[in-house]
């Protein structure tokens, strides 16, 4: 039953995709919205039963390739992913219906719908594939469709972002492919079931894991393989960015879990440590880079790097737990990671949708040209605020709950783990702490500069609230943020089951409005109580001020901002760059900030000549040391390879023959 629902859902997406190309524009956008919406509902319907009863559902369908059956397995993890995808897809379908018509009318709505639907369908298929061959096929399909979404704007920025994305996505796929081929070489099958049961020598397993980790890590946007992410996500249309950041990068995490835990059984401790380490570093660096951004979507994209890091911390702890034979720790870690995966998907897509709504009104991605939208777009602002609070791990929203569990898993790891872990876990917790403190700063800036103060540009001053479909899309996700936070005692056991299906051991995480990491003695948390108390306590200052309300003159609203007696001026309100500048200075080495204070004092003779151009300029290392050589390398390689392009068709025939011979050799060998 779940599988047929799933199949129906995928069929709806594909059908919608095809229809979208065929139908006229207006029809296309609605078709996509309707098929997407129903597809998402069917996806939810398919996944929920599996999540509740916890039994995997499988099916094998004959495919054209004799060596790889198209087998489908909807287990707890897959169902969890399908649910995540579907929750978002539903919101995006509703949002997109209005959004594309407003923003992309006449610019290929049909094509966009086509790629969107195929993109969602391919992601669904990736997570349920139980066969390496098909996994790769859908994985590649996902990359391709998303590539087209990235380059959709067709401007320089999008094309260059698309190019980098294409490069890294395929480099990643290549590594994953090699990993699977190595497994295939050992087992002779592309079937995941075979992989699971295979026993591999430790070095081989490690090589496979490393290949898959790097390959999927690239997809997930883990540092240092993140460089495509802050370029590609902002370039895409906002609702596509929501999907890219909300789920696609999670497919990378899913891949790591799939290969590392599900297929290889997290054989060695250092795998988990590596995942944990990369996670911790990603979490801090991601947010630090986010702080330097003025472009709201790039800022959100960098936050995806951060949150992938947080998810990986949980996953890493889980893998360590499995490898070290501490199933409680394993389950807790995976649970924290998966919980955060779901939460991040929800609030990040919410934020991207909010950003999309704002951009559609201000026609700029630069936060410096926004401002004052709190009055003009109050509902969008509220939704964005909820998303921002959630991503900052502010109680009692969902981001807080999953980060709380991440901290707890680190704590238990430090308490009961090996001596290495006893050192690594506290430090990871510190990095996580820095990341969340900086996230607070970053979202204060993002929300403040975008929505608060006075409008900083004419379009911003003329902005109006977006239409109801977009508000419903955002509202749905905002509601999810609140539900997954306050409803943690209900949600947690479900995700715990998913984690337990991987980690092998169930732990108690919730009881009676309280969640806890296995043992209430370690620590407990009650978000419902917190919510009730916060609301109740807000009554205290209300009563205090209310007591004197009669004694006070009426408030005076709209007084001039106090600028020390001078005429206030829009340039006096804090700017996106200025707000985060202290961090740039304090973390100077991480940004590679160089101060530019040229010609300051030579300036006196030639009257008002040049003076310091700016306090500092950010030059990120990754671009300099990773992207630039990579780009240069590929280009050089391409130039080297040009000799192959003889232009003679006989030479191409020769290539085909050679390829066949190699394939035969591999097949026989």
């Amino acid at each position: 039953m779940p599988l047929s629902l799933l199949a129906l859902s995928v069929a709806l997406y594909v059908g919608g995709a095809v229809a979208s190309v065929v139908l006229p524009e207006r029809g296309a956008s609605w078709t996509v919205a309707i098929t997407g919406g129903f597809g998402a509902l069917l996806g939810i319907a398919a996944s929920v039963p599996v999540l509740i009863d916890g039994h995997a559902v499988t099916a094998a369908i004959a495919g054209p390739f004799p060596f790889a059956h198209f087998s489908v397995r909807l287990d707890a993890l897959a169902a969890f992913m399908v649910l995540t995808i579907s929750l978002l897809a539903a919101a995006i379908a509703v949002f997109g219906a209005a959004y594309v018509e407003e923003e992309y009318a006449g610019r290929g709505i049909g094509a966009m719908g086509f790629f969107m639907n195929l993109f969602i369908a391919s992601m669904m298929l990736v997570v349920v594939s139980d066969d390496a061959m098909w996994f790769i096929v859908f994985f590649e399909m996902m990359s391709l469709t998303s590539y087209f979404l990235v380059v959709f704007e067709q401007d320089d920025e999008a094309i260059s972002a698309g190019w980098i994305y294409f490069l890294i996505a395929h480099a990643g796929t290549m590594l994953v492919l090699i990993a699977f081929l190595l497994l295939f070489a050992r087992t002779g099958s592309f079937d995941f079931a075979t992989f699971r049961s295979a026993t591999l020598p430790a070095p081989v397993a490690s090589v496979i894991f490393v290949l898959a980790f790097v390959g999927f890590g690239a997809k997930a946007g883990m540092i240092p393989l993140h460089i495509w992410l802050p370029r590609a996500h902002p370039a895409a249309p906002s609702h596509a960015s929501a999907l890219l950041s909300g789920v696609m990068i999670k497919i990378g995490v899913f891949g790591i879990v799939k290969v590392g835990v599900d297929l290889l059984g997290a054989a060695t401790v250092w795998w988990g440590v590596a995942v944990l380490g990369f996670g911790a570093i990603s979490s801090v660096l991601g947010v630090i880079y986010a702080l330097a951004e003025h472009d709201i979507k790039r800022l959100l994209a960098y936050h995806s790097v951060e949150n992938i890091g947080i998810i990986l911390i949980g996953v890493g702890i889980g893998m360590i737990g499995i490898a070290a034979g501490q199933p409680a720790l394993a389950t807790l870690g995976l649970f924290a990671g998966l919980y955060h995966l779901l939460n991040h998907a929800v609030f990040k897509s919410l934020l991207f949708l909010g950003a999309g709504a704002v951009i559609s009104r201000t026609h700029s991605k630069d936060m410096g040209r926004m401002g004052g939208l709190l009055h003009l777009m109050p509902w969008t602002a509220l939704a964005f605020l909820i998303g921002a609070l959630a991503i900052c791990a502010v109680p009692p929203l969902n981001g807080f709950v999953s980060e709380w569990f991440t901290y707890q898993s680190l704590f238990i790891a430090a308490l009961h783990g090996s001596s290495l872990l006893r050192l690594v876990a506290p430090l990871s917790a510190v990095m996580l702490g820095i990341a969340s403190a900086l996230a607070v700063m970053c979202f204060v800036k993002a929300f403040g500069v975008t929505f608060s103060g006075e409008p900083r540009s004419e379009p911003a001053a003329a902005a109006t609230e977006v239409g109801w479909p977009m508000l419903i899309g955002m509202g749905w996700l905002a509601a999810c943020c609140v539900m997954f936070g306050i409803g943690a005692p209900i949600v947690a056991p479900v995700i715990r089951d998913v984690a337990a299906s991987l980690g092998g051991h169930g732990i108690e995480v919730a009881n009676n409005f309280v969640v806890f990491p296995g043992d209430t003695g370690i620590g407990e948390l009650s978000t419902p109580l917190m919510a009730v108390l916060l609301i109740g306590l807000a009554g205290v200052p209300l009563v205090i001020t209310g007591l004197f309300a009669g004694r006070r003159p009426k408030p005076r609203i709209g007084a001039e901002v106090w600028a020390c007696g001078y005429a206030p001026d829009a340039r006096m309100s804090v700017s996106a760059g200025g707000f985060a500048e202290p961090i740039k200075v304090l973390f100077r080495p991480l940004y590679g900030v160089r101060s530019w204070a040229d010609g300051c004092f030579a300036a006196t003779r030639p009257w008002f000549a040049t003076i310091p151009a700016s306090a500092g300029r950010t030059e990120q290392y990754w671009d300099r040391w990773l992207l630039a050589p990579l780009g240069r390398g590929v280009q050089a390689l391409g130039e080297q390879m040009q000799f192959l392009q003889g232009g003679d068709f006989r030479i191409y025939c020769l290539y085909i023959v050679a390829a066949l011979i190699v394939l035969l050799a591999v097949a026989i060998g």
Partner: protein
Amino acid sequence: MNAAQPVTATASPESEREQATRLKRTLLHDIRRSVYVFRIDSGGCNACDIEIFAALTPVFDVERFGIKVVPSPRHADVILCTGAMTRAMRLPALRAFDAAPDPKIVIAYGACGCTGGIFHDLYCVWGGIDKIIPVDVYIPGCPPTPAATIYGFALGLGLLDQKLKATHHVEAEGEQVTVTHPRIPYGLRIALEREARRMAGYRQGREIVENFFILMEQDDGAPIRERIADFLARENDPRLAEIVHRLEEICARGNGGTDQ
């Protein structure tokens, strides 16, 4: 301006004033032991500001009365204005006045603040705070001393009574001014007074010459020289001795000595 809109927006000026009166009375009651002061220097010479600082610092310490200088006019209950209200400070002062919550007390501080002081009629001043914003308390002085400042605050808050009252004197019938020291010849007196001023300035000179006159007029039998010597011995001040000797010389030169 939208200060006190609740009052201005709808009400007529008459009831506006009444309401403002009522509000201010309540305010005075409320801020009796907690006064937040925002300082506006509307073009003063700094002396007033220095004395305000002096009032804040240990020797006078106005914080003991709950008076505190605040950095933002939004916190202010009292606006303390110094300076003659220069043209350039009109807008900043109005902005600050507007920025403060209603109602508020305005204190004009120093001669310039009260009326424009020595600058009262210049082209680039408006001549006093009350030309631009309504003033409730005036603290004269150039500059007022910290004690005068404390007194002014206490007065404004209704803790002390006002000492200075407008007075008007009308010349009475037969009012006449008598000549002082009638026994000293007029010419000598003028010469002594001049010399004393030349030697010790108008104030100390006057004091010295008054003492000298008293010595001259004393008729206890002893010769004047001895009386002066006694006086100088009592005072034990070489500079005073020098001056008094000069005066003696003039006396010696002749009573009617009018030469310069």
